[in-house]
């Protein structure tokens, strides 16, 4: 039985996972408090000979306590989340000079446009590969997400990346990979009968290997 987050191999994933575990322990404490409290009350205050209920309509002091404490916890959590979120998703905070790709989802495949050796999209040496996303290690990349037909969602579990691709929109996201290796892209938004098999591969190369791979693809496609 495997009930854990998959290993994380991205910079963003570190903070996402941290936040996940912070919330896990916060909610775990609340869980123990509430479920333990219920269990305790159920045992202690069960009906039995000579036992009567204590007549009360409540306590304003307690109401204030259990309003203010959660409110403070949530405010802190919200503020911290907002900062992390802005760093990940707000285009103003994207790394400069990141390598850009175009990824277009369509039923039921991902088409990736590579910038080519000039590292620029929209130039003559761009090339398209279906269902294979190659990227260099330890270098931020920007993926411009588009969709041809319906909404898809670009999901790389091990890199903690997820973003919907919406027809009529170009949505940029950035991420990196901190290790070389092979990962998976899955579609996370129901997109039709082939939704479950709309998978693609991610290959993270050493920087030099990535350049070599791009060069080999460019020549292969030119022929």
């Amino acid at each position, binding site marked *: 039985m*495997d*009930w854990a*987050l998959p290993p994380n191999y991205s910079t963003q994933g570190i903070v996402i996972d941290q936040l*996940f575990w912070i*919330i*896990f322990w*916060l*909610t775990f404490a609340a*869980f123990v408090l*509430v*479920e333990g409290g*219920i269990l305790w*009350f*159920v045992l202690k*205050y*069960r*009906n039995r000979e000579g*036992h009567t*209920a*204590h*007549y*009360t*309509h*409540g306590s304003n002091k307690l109401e204030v306590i*259990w309003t203010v404490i*959660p*409110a403070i916890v*949530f*405010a802190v*959590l*919200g503020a911290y*989340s*907002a900062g992390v*979120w*802005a760093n*990940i*998703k707000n285009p103003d905070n994207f790394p400069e000079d990141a390598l850009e790709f175009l990824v277009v989802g369509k039923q039921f495949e991902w088409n990736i446009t590579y910038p080519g050796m000039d590292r620029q999209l929209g130039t003559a040496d761009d090339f398209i590969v279906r269902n294979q996303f190659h990227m260099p290690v330890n270098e931020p990349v920007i993926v411009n997400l588009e969709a041809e*037909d*319906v*909404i898809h969602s670009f*999901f790389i*579990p*091990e890199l903690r990346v*997820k*973003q919907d691709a*919406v*027809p*009529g929109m170009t949505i940029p996201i950035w991420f990196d990979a901190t290790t070389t290796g092979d990962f*998976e892209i*899955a*579609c*996370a938004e*129901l*997109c*039709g*009968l*082939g*939704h*479950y*098999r709309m998978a693609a591969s991610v290959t993270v190369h050493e920087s030099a290997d990535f350049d070599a791979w791009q060069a080999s693809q460019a020549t292969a496609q030119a022929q």
Partner: protein
Amino acid sequence: MATIVAEATGQAILQEEHEQSFLRKYIFSTDHKVIAIQFLFTTLFFLAVGGFLAMMMRYQIAWPDQPIPGGGIFPESMVASGYILPEFYNSLVTMHGSIMVFLAIMPMLVGVYANYLIPLQLGTHDMAFPRLNMYSFWVMVPAGILTLASFFVVGGAAGAGWTLYAPLSARPDLTGVALGQQMWLVAIVLIGLSSIFGSLNYITTVINMRAPGMTWFRMPLTIWALFITAILGLLAMPVLSAAGIMLLFDQTIGTSFFLPEGGGQPLLWQHLFWFFGHPEVYILILPAMGFTSEILSVGSRKPVFGYKAMVWAIIGIAFLGFIVWGHHMFQSGMNPTLGLTFTVSTLFIAVPSAIKTFNWMGTMWRGNLHFHTPMLFAIGFVAMFAIGGLSGIFMASTPVDIYIHDTYFIVAHIHYVLFGGSLFALFAAIYFWFPKMFGRMMNEKLGKIHFWTTMIFFNLVFFPMHGVGMVGMMRRIYDSTGYAHLQGIGGTNELMTWSAFALYATGFLFAFNFFWSIFKGKKAEANPWNATTLEWQTPSPPKHGNWAEVPVVYHGPHEYSHPGVTDKDWLAQNERPDLPSPAGGH
């Protein structure tokens, strides 16, 4: 003034009673109690149907490589040579969600209990608009028929998810589903109409027809919850109906509200859907919270802890419920700056939910707890709703949502809230108000077995979903075995499926108890639970018109174990607390 009118109408109804034909009395009835029971039978049927669809999904998830037993009885367009087809699986996903939300849980909470309880707990003869009330049931019937029939038309039932995200839902060429989707949309417009009729009626009745002495802050919490829910319904349902009609136009007459080729915007659908959808979440939970407050109070023999805080929490949830819809759309491509706003509003809506949970615990604290079946389910509600509420904090935090959005973690969350929450409270409500509705008690022993088996198997089905969600299993996938990162979850998926079958089986135990008790159950007295609210101060079941004489209310709704009352541990709302003998109150 309003009360006088109500009394006059009531008398008119009473006089009419003997002239009613069978058709008027039981089929096209304007009696709120009969309409409530009509809703109850209909929604229980759809609960069984929705559950059956889930069983087929669970089979497919656990054993995608094996033909489904008995698959031969399905047409080739659904199950081909024993295997569920992916397009049929998508219909199962879509229709399970749609049926459970729109034809089972929502009309059971509101159609059944707002109808049944508002006039009885407020001490009036019937609804403000009895005929509108009848229509609200009868426009839902064709919606139900359309929904079921859509499985058997060319292309099958709708398959774009219950959230119907455009363009998938708007372009039949991409799904193969044309007519089925359109039938779903017509059904949803009818359901919207039903809900709007109902809401108008409930709001008017609560405002105008309370018994003498029934001030706002003497209303039972159930009524507060149903009243606020009706306001939510009235404001939210028209948005869904309008969006549904726009989507229908995109499909049939070539408009482009949601299609980018014609200048439309797919995200507009999501904004409209969730502007309805999030208040809808609270439509599905507020009444359940009301039932729970009341049943916990009866079972604990104590007043509701923090009654006014509970009322303000309901109002707070309702208000905040309208400004959190964007939290369903963090990863949708909506401007990421909006994420901040919706994170903050979403985390703040957790505050009134926390207040309610603590007050429920406060109600049990130092009580004298009687564990009858309704009480068990009410305690179960608090325990399960707490888990659903806490798991919601993960997705409210936008960065964490990046990972868990559209995974089984979300599926776990929604089921802890809708099943562990709403449905547990509904079971509590059914057992609790059954004697009033049918004049007989449900069997306690079977009820307790039903509770414990439901509790155990519910958790075995849905708790592990958090786990497979963490692993990264996407929602709504027909087969997870093709993914490297999902190789380790096969055993968990099988466990959840076996538990789901067992959970569904407990439903039959409940159904047996329900139908058997209608005919053979122990005869119920007027007030079998020694409860204080007005519906228990009239015979079980109440006659047409509810009261021979309109009750007068002297105090708040949940007066248990009052030290000034020595001969019993409760004081009905229509009993005067200052009189030595309760009998003198009338």
